[in-house]
């Protein structure tokens, strides 16, 4: 029942949005619909609902984390959208609003599905639902971005499907009750799975979902899509849409760990994690376009997530925490970046400088978000990144630790150069800038909320969250070496 609500409510909201024919009122559907969704999620926190549809739907700690992150972020972003869409009157926002709620529906499906096939379907739906959002600006650049996004996305989805088939074949010869792709079935029969097929499945799922998640070298669509879509869409892409494929990879990892080949999966994850960080470092240095810079930083964060999971139990705990911290911080960054973009009519260092004078709050938030995302205390990402570092050192993997720290340093240098030149200095002498407005209440309220949470989590990790994170990490590492 509750699952039906979780997926159905946003779906309904989306359909309503399609039905309503008034650009002024339509956006107001979102906050209310999403608030209901959020309250349902809150109910899930109180008591985890049991499995439904003979085990196909079930919220475990992993799913709960992703679900809550998505619900919270979309709720705040929908509030931001009220103001944003009011400013973008020249566009019809029917498709935008509808797709936003469809995204939530698809993501909820991914989060609650306890079956690899169903999870894949949800991922597919999410991929499709986000495309119109990326294309919202309807200009050549956004078209190109959407094209690349869809091409890469469909390829990734295809590979993920192939991976799912591999997973099925790993269970052969399959007899008995239940569906072979049920997580529970897979885990319970972990011992009997055929390892070559399982390995193949993991690789295909990693590449397929990794493409959607944006791990290097599968990330190349990211800067374009993030750079050309509206800031709020960027926030959702970087915060929510990356969490779902990560969940998919985690499920595959869960099975591998249960089947006792965690080492194999971890080695690949560490490799791809460091590779992603290195790639991000290379492209962040001297990046003049601050939205593309954020995209690369997101590539880096994905790498950190993969690395964390690759570093064993402690690392996985940190990685899951980092998934949440990164989502919220990216929320701050993309929303404030969007404001700055609007305040200057450009998203490169050449157009935008001296933001602190023209859009003080957004600029300050942008600066703080940058400091936070690069892992400085007292902000939340620091906690998780430090824990990952400790996990690496405790595992006596000094090489990995060294690379991690070094890449963090390089990335910080690259980002700082761009961010500071955007935030500080004198704004360009503006002649026709009255069309470009500075801060407006709702659009700084949303990132402010995110920032508050980031600071809070950086100073105080509530124990209810810790228990869930711990449970999820335990799920990941059952039987892991």
């Amino acid at each position, binding site marked *: 029942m509750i699952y039906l609500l979780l997926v159905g409510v946003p779906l309904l909201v989306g359909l309503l949005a399609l039905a309503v024919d008034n650009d002024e009122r339509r956006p107001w559907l979102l906050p209310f619909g999403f608030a209901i969704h959020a309250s349902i999620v809150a109910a899930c926190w109180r008591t985890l609902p049991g499995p439904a549809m003979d085990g196909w739907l079930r919220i475990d700690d992993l799913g709960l984390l992703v679900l809550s992150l998505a619900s919270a972020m979309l709720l705040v972003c929908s509030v931001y959208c009220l103001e944003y869409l009011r400013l973008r009157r020249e566009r019809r926002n029917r498709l935008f609003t509808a797709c936003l709620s469809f995204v939530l529906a698809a993501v909820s499906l991914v989060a609650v599905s306890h079956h690899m096939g169903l999870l894949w379907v949800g991922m597919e739906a999410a991929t499709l639902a986000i495309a119109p959002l990326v294309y919202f600006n309807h200009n050549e650049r956004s078209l190109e971005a959407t*094209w690349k996004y869809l091409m890469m996305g469909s390829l990734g989805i*295809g590979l993920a499907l192939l991976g799912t088939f591999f997973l*099925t074949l790993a269970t*052969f010869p399959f007899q008995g009750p239940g569906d072979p792709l049920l997580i529970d079935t897979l885990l319970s029969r972990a011992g009997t799975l055929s390892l070559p097929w399982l390995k193949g499945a993991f690789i295909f799922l990693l590449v397929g979902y990794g493409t959607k998640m944006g791990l290097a070298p599968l990330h190349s669509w990211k800067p374009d899509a993030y750079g050309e879509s509206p800031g709020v869409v960027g926030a959702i892409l970087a915060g929510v849409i990356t969490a779902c494929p990560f969940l998919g990879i985690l499920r595959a990892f869960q099975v591998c760990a249960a089947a006792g080949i965690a080492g194999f999966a971890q080695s690949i994850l560490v490799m791809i994690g460091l590779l992603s960080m290195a790639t991000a470092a290379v492209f962040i240095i001297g*990046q003049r376009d601050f939205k593309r810079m954020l995209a690369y930083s997101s590539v880096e964060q994905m790498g950190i997530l993969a690395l964390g999971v690759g570093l064993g139990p402690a690392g996985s705990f940190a990685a899951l925490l980092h998934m949440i911290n990164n989502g919220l911080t990216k929320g701050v960054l993309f929303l404030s970046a969007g404001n700055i973009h609007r305040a200057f009519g450009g998203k490169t260092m050449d157009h935008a400088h001296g933001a602190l004078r023209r859009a003080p709050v957004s600029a300050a938030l942008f600066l703080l978000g940058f400091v936070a995302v690069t892992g400085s205390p007292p902000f939340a990402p620091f906690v998780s990144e430090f824990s990952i570092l400790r996990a690496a050192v405790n595992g006596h993997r000094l090489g990995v630790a060294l690379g991690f720290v070094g890449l963090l340093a390089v990335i910080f240098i690259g980002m700082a150069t761009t961010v500071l030149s955007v935030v500080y200095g004198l704004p360009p002498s503006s002649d026709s800038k009255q069309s470009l407005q500075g801060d407006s209440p709702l659009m700084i309220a949303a990132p402010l909320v995110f920032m508050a949470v980031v600071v809070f989590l950086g100073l105080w990790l509530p124990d209810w969250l810790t228990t869930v994170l711990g449970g999820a990490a335990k799920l990941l590492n059952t039987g892991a070496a």
Partner: protein
Amino acid sequence: MEQFSQLLLAFIVFLSLYLLGSSSLTGCINIMALQGMCLGFLPLTVRAEGFHSRTLLLAAGMFILKGFLIPRILLYAIREVKIRREIEPMIGYAPSLLLGAVLIGVSFVLAERLPVPAGLRTSLLIPVSLATVMMGMLMMISRIKAITQVIGYLVFENGVYLFGLAIAYEVPWLIEMGVLLDVFVAVFVMGIIINHIARAFDSISTEKLTRLND
């Protein structure tokens, strides 16, 4: 029966190679249609379980969809944007053919490392599907025109579908759900995109789509 399926599979690989080599768009689309029909026949042959109503339905669906529906859409698309031939691809035809051969080899090597799933009538299915997948990717990589990339993507899908046949029995709905949804959606959305591309750039080539870079 087994011989027949083997024959079909070999034919499918051959068709993919032919696709790699051919330059005329209509030709490509027709060959794809042909490949789709072969895919339609396969479910009846590869599995030991013989003729279920489900299998029949699946076969018919594939036959119609991949054999007729999608080719129609694609032909409509190229008529819409008025182009016939693929301009010079990124990788020439001969090299891409060679690469295709190499990829077939690779896929057989990989298939060697995987145990043959039980209940499969032919051991050829897995390598062939992998090969088709890879050649589809190769086509997406080596071609300039958006439409040919779509065709490549369809070849890739065919490969995935072939693979799905191996498990069509144990996982009743996945293959239909997955492949149909996937193919349908991908081609549909891309059709729209292509139209947009046509309008935005008055050409269907992705040459123009290289503004966003570092």
